[in-house]
């Protein structure tokens, strides 16, 4: 559905996207994960026909994004990062305008149907300027969905929403993503994990890693890190835990929690739990610590650069 070949874009001297290659199949939700300025938005803008690439090419549904831009734009629904809304229009009028631009035969019905889909039917005649941020985001999403596009490109669709709204929007995107190809960007790892079939991590315009969320987690984690919390003093326990075979890097945090990790393969959590009970500690909590996106990034950048570093050390 989406095919990107050696795509590059430079703004003057700065290279925003650096020979990107990837593919997305129909019915797949592809997550674009990366820090700010990684080139996510630029890539999306090229795919939607907003701007041409400096070199390379991309096709959507077999149409070239530069030479057959209009055909591509007909088949793509796009939600930009800053939700493009006319605040002086009502939600209904706005969607009717978009339906007209998309040449839908019955703009009025399409607008109402889509408003229903995003749960804003009761605000149809309210001015967009009076809607909350979450509602505006949903109007923006409605705009991207109104013509039932084959490909949906969403730039940070859940940014600025409250937790309940985030769940709603995620649910909506997953529903839509069953039949359509969805490319969405985010900088929240858990979001990408929950929603996407495949994740592309990009940094400085390049793909650092491409994998399924499950593989990504285990691959990056390498060692599983666990936090343990007991009632009262825990320093003695920490030294005992450190004696278990396979347990590494035991640390006592300032709030008394013990953190440790073990190599992948054998799960040492039961052993640690047993030991804690045997030593008559009140076990309050034992949970795995997932790496945050920042840590994954640091990890990846470290993995990326070791050649130079090691040589430098020698």
């Amino acid at each position: 559905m989406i095919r990107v070949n050696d795509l590059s874009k430079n703004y003057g001297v700065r290279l925003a996207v650096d020979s990107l290659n990837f593919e997305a199949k129909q019915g797949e939700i592809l997550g674009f994960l990366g820090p700010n300025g990684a080139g996510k938005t630029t890539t999306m803008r090229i795919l939607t026909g907003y701007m041409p690439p400096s070199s390379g090419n991309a096709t959507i549904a077999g149409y070239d994004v530069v030479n057959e831009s209009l055909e591509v734009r007909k088949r793509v629904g796009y939600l930009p990062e800053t939700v493009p809304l006319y605040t002086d229009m009502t939600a209904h009028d706005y969607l009717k305008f978009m339906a007209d631009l998309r040449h839908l035969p019955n703009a009025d019905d399409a607008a109402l149907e889509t408003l229903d889909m995003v749960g804003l039917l009761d605000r149809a005649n309210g001015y967009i300027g009076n809607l909350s941020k979450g509602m505006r985001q949903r109007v923006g999403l409605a705009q991207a969905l109104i013509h039932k596009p084959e490909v949906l490109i969403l730039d940070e669709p859940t940014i600025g929403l409250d937790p309940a709204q985030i769940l709603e929007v995620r649910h909506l995107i997953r529903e839509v993503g069953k039949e359509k190809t969805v490319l969405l960007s985010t900088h929240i790892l858990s979001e990408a994990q929950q929603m996407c079939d495949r994740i592309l991590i990009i940094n400085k315009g390049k793909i650092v890693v491409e994998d399924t969320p499950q593989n990504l987690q285990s691959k990056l984690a390498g060692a599983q890190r666990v936090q343990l919390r007991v009632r009262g003093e825990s320093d003695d326990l920490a030294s005992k835990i450190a004696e278990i075979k396979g347990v590494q890097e035991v640390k006592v945090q300032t709030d008394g929690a013990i953190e440790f990790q073990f190599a992948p393969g054998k799960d040492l959590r039961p052993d640690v739990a047993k030991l804690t009970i045997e030593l008559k500690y009140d076990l309050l909590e034992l949970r795995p610590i997932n790496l945050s996106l920042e840590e994954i990034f640091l990890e990846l950048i470290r993995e990326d650069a070791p050649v130079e570093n090691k040589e430098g050390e020698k």
Partner: protein
Amino acid sequence: MRNIWTIAKKEFSQYFLSPIAYSVMFLLLVIVGIIFTIIFLQLSEGSFTGQEPTPPDSRPIASSLGFLLMLLLPALTMRLVADEVRMGTMELLLTAPLRDYELIVGKWLGAFLFVLVPVGITLIFPLMFHMMTEGGIDQLLLISNYLGLVLAVSAFLGMGVGISALFSNQIAALLSTLALFIIMWWLIGIPANFMQGAGNEIFKYLSLSEQFSGNFVRGTISLSSIIYFLSLTALGLVIGSTAVEIRRWR
């Protein structure tokens, strides 16, 4: 064509929500109304003093309206593209299945239809003259005057849209448009005074005031004047479409 109409409809209805558009409409109608009143008073004064009053016609209304439109229309065109850029909706329009020229022509058409509303309303004034005077006013002159006005509005808006597409800031668009109009209205005709023959003709031809006040207001409809206004409109629209295209590449 359908896309142009969709954009035009949107622009047209958005003007009815804009305080600036209402102010422009209000100013136009009030000032033309005042001019009408002054002419009206002069007429009735003449009838008291026993002098034979000169029969009124649509010329003073049309010429003042043309001048006012030149000064006020930049306030309507400044937002056409700049506002879309500011609100982020440009990204929406540029990723919709819409050609760049359709966007620009649609915006021009929406503004044009909107301005036709106040211009149409001012027809009341010559109509009142028509009813007041015996035998009515010169109707062919009226047609020439209002044809000139419609063509001038088309040219002003065409150039206005073109300039607005060059700027991301409304005030910059406003001032540049006004500057261009002032040049086109007054300054470009000045060299004609110091020239003879072809030079004189060329600069006279380029001057907006010469074309509008010199031809249409006096009742002269010539093909070359019509072409003049239509070319200015087209030039503005081409500049606008090109500017949108350039926007994509940078």
